[in-house]
């Protein structure tokens, strides 16, 4: 009745059968593995060749940038952006390493630390020799234009994709060696957070809590409350708006009571009120002693939210440091409305605080040297009054993060 009653045909031979059978089954698997190995080897070789080319290019650029520019600000139509441009140039180089000084790592080291981190996609470098230091207990902005490599760096940090070179640590733990331990205290949103649309928000969090283990289940309620989703927690995610999904993503981040939150474009899809709420929440999380690293191309939001920033372009970090310090380097300008602009320009030309003077339709604009713009504006006012020039109005124009960012990235484009 069963298979045991079947007559076994022995003419093929058990050994022959076994050998051909095993080899026959294994052959496709072995071929797949061999093809994969060859492909991987070729990709590695390409990456190495690419890295060699890149290093050569970088050496060449560094050689160029070490030469002094010799240019000083000229008398020209100066805007705040140009003031920032000037300051960025004064800082230095074509593709410098980080120039500003990140605040110290704190007692427990850096929240994120990378050295020479590199990631290739074929022949294109997405993360290029990144040296990044994110201090603990701060809001850190990772800024860059679209395609600059922000999301790729985050994916590498989180172990979502492998790095091709360099070292990194998260919360003091080397990654990927101790990835599991490191990520136990990390919450992250990468791109738009995805959820099972057929489940409710609470059920999705339950699944993630199961994956996290520990006390994550106990954090579901508070996380929903904090994300203002309690009322809709038992509705299916398919009925959620983009902003609500973003908030659910944030709730998912909070399940593990994270020391570090990595948020990739967290303001995407949020209306102005939602952006403000997100900003407030980030600040609140930082005040609780957590570290928040967010990537964004919304410079205004980053300027309002973050303490420190790193600027990334073409996969490389080109500047990093506290925002105040970086913008401070960019300097400022003073717009003056007065009775005799040409005379005022001649008078102010002797002042050490003026890096450049430009006549405008209603007066003149004075580009200031870096540091303490208000004091320098006062000095300008005094000098004009002493020279007998009537001052109708004077206004300090500070460079914004956006001005500084655009000046730095556009400078790099020109140099490339």
């Amino acid at each position, binding site marked *: *009745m*069963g*298979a*045991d*009653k*079947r*007559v*076994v*045909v022995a003419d*093929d031979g*058990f050994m*022959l*059968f*076994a050998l*051909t*059978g*095993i080899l*026959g*089954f294994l052959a496709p*698997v072995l071929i*797949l593995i061999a093809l994969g190995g060859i492909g991987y080897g070729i990709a590695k070789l390409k990456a190495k060749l690419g890295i060699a080319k890149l290093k050569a290019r970088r050496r060449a650029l560094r050689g160029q940038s070490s030469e002094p520019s010799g240019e000083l600000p000229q008398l020209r139509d100066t805007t705040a952006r140009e003031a920032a441009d000037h300051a960025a140039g004064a800082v230095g180089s074509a593709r410098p390493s980080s120039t500003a000084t990140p605040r110290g790592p704190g007692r427990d080291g850096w929240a994120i630390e990378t050295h020479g981190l590199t990631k290739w996609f074929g022949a294109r470098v997405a993360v290029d020799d990144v040296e990044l230091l994110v201090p603990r207990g701060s809001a850190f902005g990772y800024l860059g234009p679209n395609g600059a490599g922000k999301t790729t760096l985050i*994916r590498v940090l*989180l*172990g*979502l*994709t492998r790095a091709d070179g360099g070292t990194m640590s998260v919360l003091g733990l080397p990654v990927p060696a101790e*990835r*599991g*331990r*490191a*990520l*136990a*205290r*990390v*919450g*992250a949103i*990468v*791109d*738009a*957070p*995805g*959820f*099972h*649309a*057929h*489940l409710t928000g609470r*059920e*999705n969090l*339950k*699944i*993630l809590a*199961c*994956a*996290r*283990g*520990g006390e994550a289940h106990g954090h579901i309620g508070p996380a929903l409350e904090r994300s203002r989703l309690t009322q809709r927690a038992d509705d299916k995610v398919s009925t959620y708006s983009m902003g609500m999904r973003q908030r659910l993503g944030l709730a*998912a981040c909070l399940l*593990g009571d994270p020391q570090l939150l990595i948020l990739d474009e967290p303001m995407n899809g949020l209306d102005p009120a939602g952006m403000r709420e997100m900003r407030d929440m980030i600040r609140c999380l930082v005040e609780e002693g957590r570290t928040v690293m967010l990537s964004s191309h919304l410079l205004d939001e980053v300027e309002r939210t973050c303490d420190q920033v790193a600027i990334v372009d073409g996969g490389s970090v080109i500047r990093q440091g506290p925002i105040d310090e970086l913008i401070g380097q960019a300097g400022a300008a003073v717009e003056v409305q007065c009775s005799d602009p040409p005379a005022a320009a001649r008078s102010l030309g002797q002042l050490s605080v003026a890096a450049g003077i430009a006549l405008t339709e209603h007066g003149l604009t004075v580009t200031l040297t870096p540091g303490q713009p208000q004091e320098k504006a006062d000095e300008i006012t005094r000098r004009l009054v002493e020279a007998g020039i009537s001052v109708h109005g004077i206004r300090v124009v500070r460079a914004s993060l956006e001005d500084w960012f655009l000046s730095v990235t556009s400078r790099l484009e020109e140099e490339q």
Partner: protein
Amino acid sequence: MTQYGLVAVRRASWRPSLALIGAKVLDLRKRSVLMAITVAFTVGVPVIFYGIREITHLADPAHYGPAGATSAFATVVTLMAEFGFILAVLLGATAGADDLTDGMFRQLVITGRSRVALFLARIPAGLSVLLPLAAAGFTVTALVTGFLNSPPAPGEVVPSAGALAAALTEAGLWFELYLVVGFTVGLGLAVLMGQRTVPVVLLIVWEIILTPALADHVIPHLVNVQRLIVGVAMDQLKPAPLAAASVGPGGGRFLIPPMPTWAMAVVIAGWIIGWLAIGAWRMLTRDA
């Protein structure tokens, strides 16, 4: 070791926790369309089949035998196996790829949980949805066969209750094994391809069209390769009462010369383990 350390060690483990398996069960169970198909293909098939037979028998007993005739048992189990295989592939592919297609996989990886554990959790989760319902469907079949069978003809040797139970158990285990094969192959292929629809279509084509085409005739010098087709191994492992369900020169079986039981076991285990290994490897190496 600190509490933090304990949590971390457990999270790095490749073994899936019960909670993780439960989470996957929740995900599958809440897919209402999938669950409806599961119930229909497992319990619905024998209920409808026997229902129609019973109605026709009651309407015209002279022409239609009772629902639980022995020949009907073989037919319905074969039918359930065909539907069940498709269902198993669908469930396996869903369990394997829904996290990827919904964007949830990335979130799960970010928790720091081992990717192997994430993969392995899908196996008991999917099977715990599939097998109990399949068993329920088979139980319906067994009960109908046991209680709504035709009375023995004069002189007919009636098998003992023990022999009948053994035959039913053998058929039931074969049926469940067939579904396990479908599930694991569907799971592995879906994880490999990162999607659900194409693997389901491919495996249905494989099972319904390619396997019969490749196994219905002996190809000279390639008979051992033909024996590596899992459908052939399952067909040869099929208990004799089930093989009687279909007609043909092979007595209900493909025409490949029989292979020893251990060889069938190797082929079937090879397919299960091989596809699970491929799925686990892809899960480990996939960019999230």
